[in-house]
């Protein structure tokens, strides 16, 4: 019941107002700890100090997929229950997910140049990640192009669910195809292949960036709820002026 109670804009505003200061503080603390651990960690035996890019690149990749998965779940809420908070969550997640995905591609290119000798290669992992960014941008453009917010929400939800096929492709592309990108080394059958001296800084940074994503998403959802209230009041003011 408490979760169902929260799925209401008024209760969400009250609950998130209380939670946000703690979330913001936790984000700063965990990110600070993550970066401290990352810059204390030894260089990798093959990558040298360039492994430091992995402490931001890998969490960005995870959060790009996390954001899209969250939007796919919200899409079910939009299409099945027509829940207004699901629509708000969907809309607020898109720019955050797009930013993390774009930063994943940029930091990956900056890592690829010294390690692979190239900024870009049309390999399955890189290409599917680029498709993910294009999906995010397409969803934002779709919402902006349709004036009726309800129709825009439903159209975006359908496109999100169709595009969700790309998320497992991103994840398993390195197993299904012979790619230049290295195979999974953290979440894999048989456990992580990364030494703990590099793994813990990576996981701490990932936890910090996840908290950042959740914090920004919560503020974005609050903004969208206020935006809808402003629009409703402006429409009422306009109707009263005409009457």
């Amino acid at each position: 019941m408490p979760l169902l109670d929260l799925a209401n804009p008024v209760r969400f505003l009250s609950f998130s107002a209380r939670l946000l200061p703690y979330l913001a503080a936790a984000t700063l603390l965990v990110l600070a700890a993550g970066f401290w651990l990352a810059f204390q960690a030894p260089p990798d035996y093959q990558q040298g100090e360039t492994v430091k890019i992995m402490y931001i690149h890998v969490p960005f990749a995870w959060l790009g997929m996390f954001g899209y998965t969250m939007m796919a779940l919200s899409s079910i809420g939009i299409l099945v229950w027509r829940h207004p908070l699901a629509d708000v969550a969907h809309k607020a997640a898109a720019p955050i997910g797009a930013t993390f995905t774009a930063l994943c591609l940029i930091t990956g290119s900056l890592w690829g140049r010294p390690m692979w000798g190239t900024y870009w290669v049309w390999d399955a992992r890189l290409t599917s990640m680029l498709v993910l960014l294009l999906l995010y941008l397409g969803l934002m453009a779709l919402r902006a192009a349709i004036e009726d917010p309800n129709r825009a929400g439903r159209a975006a939800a359908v496109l999100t669910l169709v595009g969700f096929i790309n998320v497992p492709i991103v994840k398993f592309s390195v197993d299904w195809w012979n790619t230049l990108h290295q195979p999974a080394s953290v979440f894999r059958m048989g456990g992580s292949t990364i030494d703990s001296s590099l793994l813990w800084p990576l996981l701490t940074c990932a936890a910090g960036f996840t908290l950042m994503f959740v914090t920004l998403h919560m503020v974005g959802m609050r903004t969208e709820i206020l935006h809808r209230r402003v629009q409703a009041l402006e429409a009422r003011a306009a109707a009263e002026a005409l009457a």
Partner: protein
Amino acid sequence: MSHLLFIAASYGVSLLGLGLLTGWILLSYRREQRMLRELEARGLRRRARAAAPARTATEGDTVVRVK
């Protein structure tokens, strides 16, 4: 440190990207808050809020019934 330029560029771009995202989200939030306050100052209220009494009696309150 080898490849220092690539490491610095990665962290720099990330800081810039996340800084811009955070700034945009916070500024949008403040703008909507300000607009809502301005509309409410003009006497416009949401229907639910306008219809609700100033304060609803909760458990523990003394309720005096006037006949």
